[in-house]
Structure formats: C-alpha cells, structure tokens
C-alpha cells in the first residue's frame, strides 16, 4: 500500500522491448510527435521567450516591440518594489492559513463521512459541488454573502449580536474573506482525497487494533494517521501550489484592494503585465516566482519518493 502521485503501479514488465520491431518504434514515435510539438510550441517556446523578455526593456504603452537588453534591471525593479514584497507576504498568509484550515476541516469531514451509507454518499456528492464551479463564480457568490446589507454573513452575525465588518473594504478582513472563499471551495478536495485514502486502509488492521483494546481515537491516531501521511503530503502540495498561483478569487472578490492590501503574487504580476503593460518587468517577476515554485515542486518529488520508500 503506497501513496504516490507520480507513476503509480510498477509496469509488470519493462515495456515491449523484445517484441518491438522497427515499424513498431516508428508507430510509437508517430504517436508521440503531435503532443511533443504542441508542448514545444505552446509551453517551451513561450517560457523561453519570457526569459529573454525579462532581460530586455519593454513597456507596451511606449512601444509595440521589445527594446534593447538591459541586464538585470527588470529584476532589480521588481525586487525593489514594496508592493511585490507586500504581495509575497499576503500570498504566504493566504496559502498557509487557508491550507491549514482546509486540511483540518477536510480531514474531519472525511472521518465523519467514511461509512458507505446512503446519507454519507449523498453528503459527499453534495459537498463536492463548490469545487466543480468556476472560482470566479464562487467569488461572485461570496460577494453576495459578504454584502454588508443583504449578505448572509453579516445578517447571521447581527442575529447573534455581532456587528460584522465591511468585509471587502477593510485591509484585514478582505484577506480573511479570500481565505474563507478558498476554504469553502477547496475543503471538499481535501475531503475527497483523504476519504479515498481512508477507504484503502485494510480494515483488518483497524479491527486488530480495537481487539487489542485501543479506543477509537487511539486507533485513528496510531494506526490510520500514519497510513495517511502520503495522502496528506499530496494534498498539501497540490493545495499550496494552486492557492499560491490562483488569480481568479482575488481578481473577482477584491481586485487586490482596498489599496494594495490584498495583492497576491499572481495578482501583482498580472496587474503589472496586463494592466500596466510593463511586459518585461512582469516577465522578470514571473521568473522569480518560478524559482520559488520549482523549489516546492522538487521538494514534493523528494517527499513522494521518501514516502514510497518508507512504505514499500
């Protein structure tokens, strides 16, 4: 029982090498070529282009074509911009708080809904709905919820005697609002992954533990939790990266405002490149962002390999 997000399942045999003839190899390469060309044209080429642009001077408001090379000036411009650092901090806060909340709630829900009864299955299907809708629609829904006059959030709060804040107009509460929307939408994802990981735990182990006199909480902590480590690692990396990189919620919910208070890194780079048209500075910032994310992806691979070696 291993948990892996990479190539799952070992091939029973190392491909068809002894049986593969030359025309077969030709057929296989012919199968691979269209996708390969698409990836080169639609991914590698733009990415390389971005790295070249990041060293040139180009503001679309001044010229329709890229200018001369300026060395590291674009990187220096981004790194000396206080808004960039503010956005980095906000991104970190949203990702850490949001993912922690989603992990707690999602695991709780998975544990609550682990049985296969009709009620549990229906609940799982209904809870899945927030994650299938467009994040821009989810953000619009919460703009209605956070509306200070008619929204359910503040009317509920005032029913229990609390005066709710002006959610989207307040520098602190607008960031909280983004975390709430992200948590509403993506807790179901955590629930789904942890649920299916729980289902794959051999029932004999759990029964053996309870025969040995372990209570339900003790069984969960000492028998099941360790077997869920891989699923947790997967959920944390998927959620952290997606939350770090997403633009939709911030764009629709707060527009980065009030002021720059809810700017995230992706929103900052979007606004820089496609609103202010500072193409080259935005490309430089994207590469800085890319370095951070690559470190996380490499760590994810390490963790995945480690968890596979530990359990197999």
């Amino acid at each position, binding site marked *: 029982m*291993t*948990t892996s*997000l990479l*190539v*799952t*399942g070992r091939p029973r045999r190392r*491909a*068809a090498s002894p049986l593969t003839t030359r025309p077969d190899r030709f057929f296989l*390469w012919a*199968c*691979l070529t*269209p*996708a390969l060309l698409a*990836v080169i044209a639609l991914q590698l*080429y*733009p*990415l390389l*282009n*971005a790295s070249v642009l990041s060293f040139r001077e180009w503001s679309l408001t001044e010229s329709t074509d890229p200018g001369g090379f300026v060395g590291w000036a674009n990187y220096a411009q981004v790194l000396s911009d206080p808004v960039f650092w503010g956005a980095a901090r906000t991104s970190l806060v949203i990702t850490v708080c949001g993912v922690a909340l989603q992990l707690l709630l999602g695991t709780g829900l998975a544990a609550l809904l682990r049985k296969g009864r009709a009620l549990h299955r229906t*609940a799982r*299907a209904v*809870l*899945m*709905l*927030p*994650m*299938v*809708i*467009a994040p*821009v*629609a989810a953000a*619009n*829904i919460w703009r*209605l919820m956070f*509306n200070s*006059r*008619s929204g*359910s959030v503040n009317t509920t709060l005032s029913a229990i005697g609390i005066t709710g804040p002006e959610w989207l107009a307040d520098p602190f509460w607008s960031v909280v609002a983004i975390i709430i929307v992200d948590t509403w939408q993506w807790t179901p*994802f955590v629930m789904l*992954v942890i649920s*299916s*990981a729980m289902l*794959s735990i051999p029932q004999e182990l759990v029964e053996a533990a309870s025969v040995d006199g372990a209570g339900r909480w003790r069984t969960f902590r000492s028998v099941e939790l360790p077997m869920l480590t*891989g*699923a947790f690692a*997967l*959920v944390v990396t998927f959620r952290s990266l*997606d939350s770090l*990189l997403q*633009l*939709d919620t911030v*764009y629709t919910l707060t527009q980065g405002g009030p002021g720059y208070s809810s700017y995230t890194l992706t929103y900052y780079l*979007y606004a820089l*490149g496609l609103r202010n048209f500072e*193409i080259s500075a935005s*490309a430089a910032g994207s590469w800085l*962002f*890319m370095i951070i*994310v690559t470190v996380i*992806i490499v760590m994810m691979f390490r963790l995945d390999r480690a968890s596979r070696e530990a359990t197999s």
Partner: protein
Amino acid sequence: MRKRFTAALMGLLIVAVVLVWILPFFELISASFKSPADFFSASFLPEHPTLANFDEIFADPKTGIMLRNSLIVVTITTIVSVLLGTLSGYALARLGLSPWVIGGVVFVLLFFRFYPRIAMVIPFFVMMRDWGLFDTPVAVVLGHLSITIPFATWLMLIAFRGLPAEIDEAGAIDGASLPGRFFHLALPMAASSMATAAVLTAVLSWNEFLIAQSLTRSSNPVLSTGVASFITDAGVKYGSMAALSLVICIPIVVFALVMQRHYVAGMTMGAVKG
C-alpha cells in the same frame, strides 16, 4: 440504545454541515431573483421576486457570444487533449524508456501543471497578438491546450503503464501488429481513463479564467471572463451578476454530478494507488 443515539447525533451533524456548506448556493439562486431594492434589506429571500435579471442578461448579445465561445473552447480543447494525450501516453508507456527517463518526463508533465502560469501568459499574449489570434476563441483553445495536453498525457501514461502486459504479449504472439494491439487491446482497456481525462479537461477549460482573461477583450469574451466582469465600483449590478454566475454554474454542476465517478477518480488520482 446509546449507540443508536450517537448515530442519530452524527446524522444530524452531517446534515447540519452539508446545509451550511451549500447555503452560498441558495444565496446565489435567491439573489438572481432579487430586484435592486432587495439588496438593501437583510432578507434572505427576494422580497420582490423578479425575472428581470435573466431578461437583462439574455437581452445582451454578449451573453450569447460568451456561451457560444465557451462551448467551442471546451469542445475543441477536450477532444484534442484526449486524442493527443492518449497517443503520447501510450507511446511513452511502450517505448521501453528507462525508469529514469520516465521519471524525468513525469516531472516535466507535472511541472507544466503547477508552475506559475502567469509566466507563460505574458509571452503567449504577445505571441497571439503577432499571429493575429488575439481576442479569438482559438487563442483561448491554444492557451488551454498548453496545460491540458501535458495533463492528459500524464493521466494516460499512468493508465497504460497499469495495464497487464500479458495481454499485450499474447496479442503479439498471435501475430497482431502494434497498431492493431493499440486499437483493439489497449484502447478498450483504457477507455475509463480516457473518460476521466475528458471530464477533468472539460471542467478545467469551462472554468479557466487567467488565460481566457489575458487572451480576450470584452468584445469576444468566454463565460468565465464575462462572469468576472462585474467589478465596476459604480453600482454593482448584483442581480445580473448572480444570474450570469448561475448560468456558468448550472451546466458544470449537472455535468460533474452525472460524471461523478470519473471526476472523483481523476481528482483523487495518485492518492490511493498501490
């Protein structure tokens, strides 16, 4: 007795959690029937229910353009990604590459899923402008394909590597050519994974915002960019915003419920394979 009491309590707790979690959907439905004045009162249900919001969005010719563009983008993106992903996934699984090479390929495929897309969007915007495709559905399709082809390849690579090799060997001994074995043996066994890839691609493409927003202008929007366009400070039209949000949600919610098995299989992939 005590056990049944706890069970009933747990059932109540589940119902309560589910109700709280889907309350925002009810708020959306209710808001889409509200008149402008209703947004100034604290009532959950519309006090003056009206269909004016729907009349308004469907009277706007842009709504038709958005719906048409979104349908075109989703259809082409899904068909092309599943087709190319299946072919390349099969090739990668059968080429007899060393585990190191496969590991590298998987790293690159997953990297394309997770790196900051904003880095690709800016040169892509320039590229589409130079090719004369800016502000067309074709640009959005190409943008989506850049993510979904690697993603479908990854899914299908895993699916084909998981197939038992004995069947393939038996086919080879019976004299079936490799293309024959691909079409008659491997493909039928991978059909369910292809459906999973199609469902995930379609959901992604329908909901995607960053690429669509960067490659189109308000003259030729898709649904997601239209839904996000209610951001003017000067009096947000909450009613139309709710109605259009409902238009983008309903098809995908129905689709995901019908395709639930494939959707869940795709989303939880890698979490529980042994």
